């Protein structure tokens, strides 16, 4: 342990300017962050979001500098022929990062939670630790691994740029892989590969200093991640996550295509068209909500020509008494040109989550913060009074729903009852998570005037004193539903303006 402390103290003496810089940026972050809890970034604060970026860069710089102060690449470093124990050297570096990156960050977590009004702090510690582990593993460990296979800051910068290019390429590739954007089934595997490779690299470099081997490990991991992106059977994963109903089971929602309302077609770029499919909704039980997590459209022509949209994320919440839903799909213009005159079969797959309402909580909107039990604190958005701005500690609710009598009156007239048959305003938010730097997360609840068929925010206003009905439903199950449509000829709908105009051959379209 003495050697660990000895090396640690040397690193402190060497890197105190970087340490001070990092701590200064963290303090700036702690000062700035609370402002984002009460003002939305899209109203003038987005330009100030450089502080978290600077914070990350300062951490990276500190980690790279401390790792490279006993550079592992090269054969001329004085320390490699000195009685350094590699485990102690590694422990000293971990101690340094713990002391000047993770410990201050943990203190900032406590400060921000207290500042946001969330107590008692010890009750959040397990979540904070988990958040911390995620941040260290996914944000700091890869940089530490890269630092062990580079010897200078310049090399490191070039390496990070190369990694950036790789990530951009992987993201571009992923965009071409059907269903990749919807299913997170391989995310855990990708993260495990990344973390495993980074740990192996760090340990291998410190114990053996075999830089070529270590670089090969990282390159192999990068290749493996690409392979995982490409080769993951996303549709199979989705079918596991959203199993079909057993025979005889009641569907949580009835979804049907509407013969009287054919699909509309809108342009979407040079090569694509957007197919708008109206869906009739019915059968949602009182006290339930159905989350529409994803959809997949398959169009099949009689000659066997098939087009599939892949699973698309299209989050919507379906309420009891809701009657209509519109889905949008991007399709290749060239495919529609080929099949427009034939009878095409529409098949839509739905990935749904069924929620049970545990009973709404009646809350009176206050001028400042008001508590949303089990969730956090909310306030009326100062700039856009059709929405609520809520903050929560560490983990937000999977789903929160708010309902209030619709009002276009000014704030001098209070509407404090939800009278059946009157118009209401509704809003929902889901899957809110804080972090990675702040334990205080935020979400917006935009309220829309809703009558079962249409939504509108026209003149909607939330005023202090209004009664709000909040629900935090619990997830019941996930389910997959398939809907078929009779065979139709898209060309039959040429009377509809968009179809007539847009199904004409396009000069830039692929003749195939």
């Amino acid at each position: 342990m003495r050697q660990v402390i000895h090396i640690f103290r040397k690193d402190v003496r060497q890197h105190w300017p970087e340490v001070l810089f990092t701590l200064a940026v963290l303090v700036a972050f702690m000062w700035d962050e609370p402002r984002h809890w009460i003002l939305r970034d899209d109203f003038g604060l987005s330009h100030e979001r450089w502080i978290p970026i600077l914070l990350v860069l300062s951490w990276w710089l500190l980690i790279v500098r401390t790792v490279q102060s006993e550079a592992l690449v090269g054969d001329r470093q004085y320390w490699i022929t000195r009685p350094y124990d590699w485990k102690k050297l590694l422990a000293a570096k971990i101690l340094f990062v713990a002391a000047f990156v993770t410990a201050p960050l943990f203190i900032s977590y406590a400060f921000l939670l207290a500042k946001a009004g969330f107590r008692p702090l010890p009750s959040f510690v397990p979540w904070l630790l988990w958040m911390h582990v995620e941040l260290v593993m996914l944000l700091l460990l890869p940089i530490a691994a890269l630092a062990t296979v580079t010897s200078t800051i310049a090399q490191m910068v070039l390496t990070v740029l190369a990694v950036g290019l790789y990530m951009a390429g992987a993201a571009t590739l992923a965009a071409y892989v059907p269903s990749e954007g919807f299913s997170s089934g391989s995310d855990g595997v990708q993260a495990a590969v990344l973390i495993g490779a980074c740990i192996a690299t760090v340990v291998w470099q410190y114990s053996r200093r075999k830089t070529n081997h270590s670089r090969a490990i990282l390159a192999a991991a990068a290749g493996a991640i690409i392979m995982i992106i490409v080769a993951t059977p996303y549709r199979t994963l989705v079918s596991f996550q959203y199993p079909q109903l057993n025979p005889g089971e009641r569907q949580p929602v009835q979804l049907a295509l509407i013969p009287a309302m054919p699909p509309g077609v809108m342009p979407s770029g040079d090569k694509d068209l957007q197919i708008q499919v109206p869906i009739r909704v019915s059968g949602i039980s009182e006290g339930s909500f159905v989350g529409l997590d994803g959809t997949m459209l398959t169009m099949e022509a009689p000659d066997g020509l098939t087009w599939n949209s892949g699973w698309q994320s299209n989050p919507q919440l379906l309420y009891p008494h809701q009657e209509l839903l519109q889905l949008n799909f991007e399709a290749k213009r060239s495919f529609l040109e080929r099949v427009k005159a034939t009878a095409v079969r529409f098949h839509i797959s739905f990935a749904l989550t069924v929620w049970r309402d545990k009973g709404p909580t009646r809350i009176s909107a206050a001028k400042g913060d008001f508590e949303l039990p089990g969730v956090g604190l909310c306030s009326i958005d100062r700039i856009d009074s059709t929405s609520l701005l809520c903050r929560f500690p560490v983990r937000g609710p999977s789903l929160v729903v708010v309902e209030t009598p619709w009002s276009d009156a000014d704030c001098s007239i209070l509407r404090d009852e939800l009278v059946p048959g009157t118009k209401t305003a509704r809003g929902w938010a889901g899957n809110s998570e804080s972090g990675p730097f702040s334990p205080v997360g935020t979400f917006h609840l935009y309220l829309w005037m809703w009558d079962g068929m249409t939504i509108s925010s026209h003149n909607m206003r939330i005023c202090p004193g209004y009664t709000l009905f909040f629900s935090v439903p619990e997830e019941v199950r996930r389910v997959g539903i398939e809907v078929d449509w009779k065979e139709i000829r898209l060309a039959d709908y040429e009377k509809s303006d968009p179809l007539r105009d847009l199904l004409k051959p396009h000069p830039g379209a692929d003749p195939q």
Partner: protein
Amino acid sequence: MSSPIQTENLTKKFRRVEALNGLNLDVPDGAIYALVGPNGAGKTTAIKILMNIFGPTSGHATVLGTDSKRIAGHAFTAIGYVSENQELPGWMRVDRFMAYLRPFYPSWDRDLENELARQFDLPLDRKLKDLSRGMRMKAALASSLAYRPKLIVLDEPFSGLDPLVRDQLIEGMLARASEATIFISSHDMAEVETFASHVGYLEQGRLRFSDEMTTLTERFREVELTFDLPPALPEKWPESWMQVETSGAVVQFVESRFNAERTNAEIRKNFNSVRDVTFTPMSLRSIFLVMAKAGRRVGQERGTDETGHPHLP
């Protein structure tokens, strides 16, 4: 006790380039062993393998009884290593550098550290990056001697240094010679000739010879034979005669197995009437030049012998 450094068929390849080819070394305890040879001969590679900075491609080496591949951590408390291009922590002051290294070595001698600092005129309050090259080498050497290592390994320590600094370094090193084995590499034969007890000559990754200094210098003589008339030359020269040159009534060569009685008998056997014979001792540098030329010639003409080394007299 086993030799502080032993190698057995040590080979190192960098891709297709063979930097070291079957090196067999045995450095006796207490020796000042100079591994000499031209630039690119493989000296630094050999040392880096011994220090486990590189791993060998094949072969085996032991340092202070430990497999070189296991030399790490605590093993370096008994080894002092200084290299001409070692990267020191430039941001540290000399005294802080010494203070930083001190706790790593149980045998660190503060008095010796102070003595070395005085002997080398080290500016303790200056940062290492601000020191001249010679001064940095002195700081590195002082930091490698202060814990009284059993083995001191120096890789081209005097390269490019002015004579005064070089003498200071040599004095400092020799002062520790009684309690350590010193293994030093150099491409300058003259600088090691004055203090080395053993010498090995490395060329193109191969050890041409390895011997005690006194034995080596006694083995080689420049011989000049003077005749009254140009002599009849033998069909084949004795193998131990190198670089034979004739000019009228004078024949010159280098005898690589000198023994006055044996060499005189050999001369009489090859020439009937020698008027005068002179034997001149050779400097190490001259010996190496002869060996280097012979090595290249033999290498070109005959390749290598069964041990992988060029056949030398």
